[in-house]
């Protein structure tokens, strides 16, 4: 197992170097001088300009500059926002819980509905239910989620008035951030109605963000189950006289789980992509909206640092998913 972890970690390093190269090159391709960009419209004296050039290492060869960048990144220094002057890393980690909370609710929504739907579709293959699930999931997979969000707002917030249009919680409440997860913090605060408000703000964004993962999970569960249901050991289990439910739940589902877990793990990238759009639609104060606003404001350090951190998070989650298979499936662990 130790070797397996090491080999996975070894695979991670070149990818991480690649991402830092990308963000390093990115900032150099942006038109204009980075120091002047930072100075803004006030301008800057030639002497101060030279001083800053030295301070940032811009007078060094490119390869040295890259080395300096890497060493700063490894020390957790991702620069400061042009706009707020706050450290990029601290801004990211302040907003990150909001994105995680939304993503977790979305993936729970997707799994809770997608998994049983895919299983039942596989068991009742070619029934109306099966065709319905497959049709709906292909539609969900093709969904432009930024439009889907607007439609849901139109129906549930505007027409029916059931859910709020935007934000994380009603403006009436001020919740002291403890964990950063509003569902938990609002309970801890003990304020009446705060938790309900947080939940009602979460419902629509979670559905929107969970739609594509839901479609993918339902399709994958169905095909994984179909494959397993055709295996000999399922026939053996049935021949032994086990009940249909027992065969499906204990024998088939457990073996279908590996591709399903894989697919759920792969949704992390999808969730981040979706979070950028979902947070923009619902004014959800997470890292996706923060990045988009950084582009509008030409806040390049935020863009550079944010992309690097998001890439790192996706990499780490992918690594955890990889390690999880190793635990579920010994064949992967011992394979060379």
């Amino acid at each position, binding site marked *: 197992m130790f070797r397996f972890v090491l080999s996975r970690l070894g695979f991670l390093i070149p990818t991480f170097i690649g991402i830092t190269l990308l963000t390093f090159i990115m900032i150099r391709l942006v038109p204009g001088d980075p120091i002047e960009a930072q100075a803004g419209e006030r301008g800057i004296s030639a002497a101060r300009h030279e001083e800053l050039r030295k301070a940032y290492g811009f007078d060094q060869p490119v390869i040295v500059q890259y080395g300096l960048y890497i060493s700063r990144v490894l020390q957790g220094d991702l620069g400061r926002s042009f706009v707020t002057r706050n450290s990029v890393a601290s801004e990211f980690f302040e907003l990150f819980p909001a994105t995680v909370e939304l993503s977790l609710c979305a993936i729970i929504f997707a799994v809770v509905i997608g998994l049983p739907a895919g299983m039942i579709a596989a068991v009742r293959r070619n029934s109306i239910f099966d065709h319905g699930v497959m049709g709906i999931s292909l*539609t969900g997979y*093709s969904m432009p989620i930024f439009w889907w969000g607007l439609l849901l707002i139109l129906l549930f917030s505007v027409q029916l008035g059931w859910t709020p249009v935007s934000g994380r919680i009603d403006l009436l409440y001020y919740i002291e951030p403890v964990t950063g997860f509003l569902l938990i913090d609002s309970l801890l605060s003990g304020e009446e109605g705060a938790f309900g408000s947080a939940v009602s703000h979460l419902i629509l964004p979670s559905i929107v963000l969970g739609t594509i993962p839901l479609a993918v999970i339902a399709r994958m569960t169905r095909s994984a189950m179909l494959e397993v249901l055709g295996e000999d050991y399922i026939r053996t289990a049935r021949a032994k006289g086990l009940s249909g439910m027992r065969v499906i739940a204990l024998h088939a589902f457990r073996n279908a789980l590996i591709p399903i877990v894989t697919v759920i793990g792969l949704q992390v990238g999808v969730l981040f992509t979706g979070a950028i*759009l979902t947070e923009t639609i619902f004014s959800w104060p997470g890292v996706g909206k923060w990045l988009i606003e950084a582009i509008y404001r030409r806040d390049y350090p935020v863009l550079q640092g944010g992309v690097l951190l998001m890439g790192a998070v996706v990499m780490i989650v992918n690594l955890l998913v990889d390690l999880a298979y190793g635990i579920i499936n010994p064949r992967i662990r011992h394979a060379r």
Partner: protein
Amino acid sequence: MTTEVLQTPPIAAGTTPAAAPPSDLAAFWHDFRRNTGAVIGLAIIVVVTGLAVFAPLIAPHHPDRTDSTAFLRPPVWQDGGSWSHLLGTDAIGRDLLSRLIWGAQLSLSIGVAVVVLSLVSGVLIGMAAGYFRGWIETAIMRAMDVILTLPSLLLAIVIVAILGPGLANAMIAVALVTLPHYVRLTRAAVIGELSKDYVTAARVGGSSNLRIMFKEVLPNCAAPLIVQASLGVSAAILDAAALGFLGLGAQPPASEWGTMLADAREFVLRAWWVVTFPGLMILITVLAFNLVGDGLRDALDPKLKR
């Protein structure tokens, strides 16, 4: 026994009645047609393509012409709607139906152009990786891993942020993001094919490397590439629309569907039609390409048949 097997089996009605085996195309169509969803998807694509090609003839109004007497006019079946604007008008009095029809032209061109761009460059890069191996392959595949690690829209946003917003840059960004799929497919196919006897035979016959790659190997790995390309069109339309929605793709007054939605966002409370119809067009078109992609995969790639 053997004589029975050797006799030509009766061919299903509808295909070539002659004793000759059906051509590749006919066999493909026979497989494809059995998938109802794929046929529906194909029909939708034909209709949308028709709208795109004949947009100047079909669209009742010029897509950018504003009508100062009809701001946010609802569709014809609602109170206040009129026959001159079947699907209503937007906030500055432009005819929604006309803009949607012209938008088909824009969105389809985006989809096709992006796929051609990433398919051609992906095949070339993938071939280089599969053929040369060694450090070239390692460098290429690591670069592709980096692209795949970053969420696709995030990377596209970064590229657009560097190049500046606009349709052409958005298309380059989406093409780059989808590149790894083609590179991986081509490389895997090339490595698989190169060890086969027919390649050795071609080499013994004195064919040049380039000739072997394009004449022998490429046609043999075409099927997965075609499937990926048809699914790629839908992904490209969706991503380009998302960029347009974020204000990073096609710029107003272009009647790109995603850009139209971005304009419509602030009217979501007052005018449902400006929000509903552009998104519906995106959904229908993307769904059609996905249906056809699924059908193509089933018809072209028996290994993937479920």
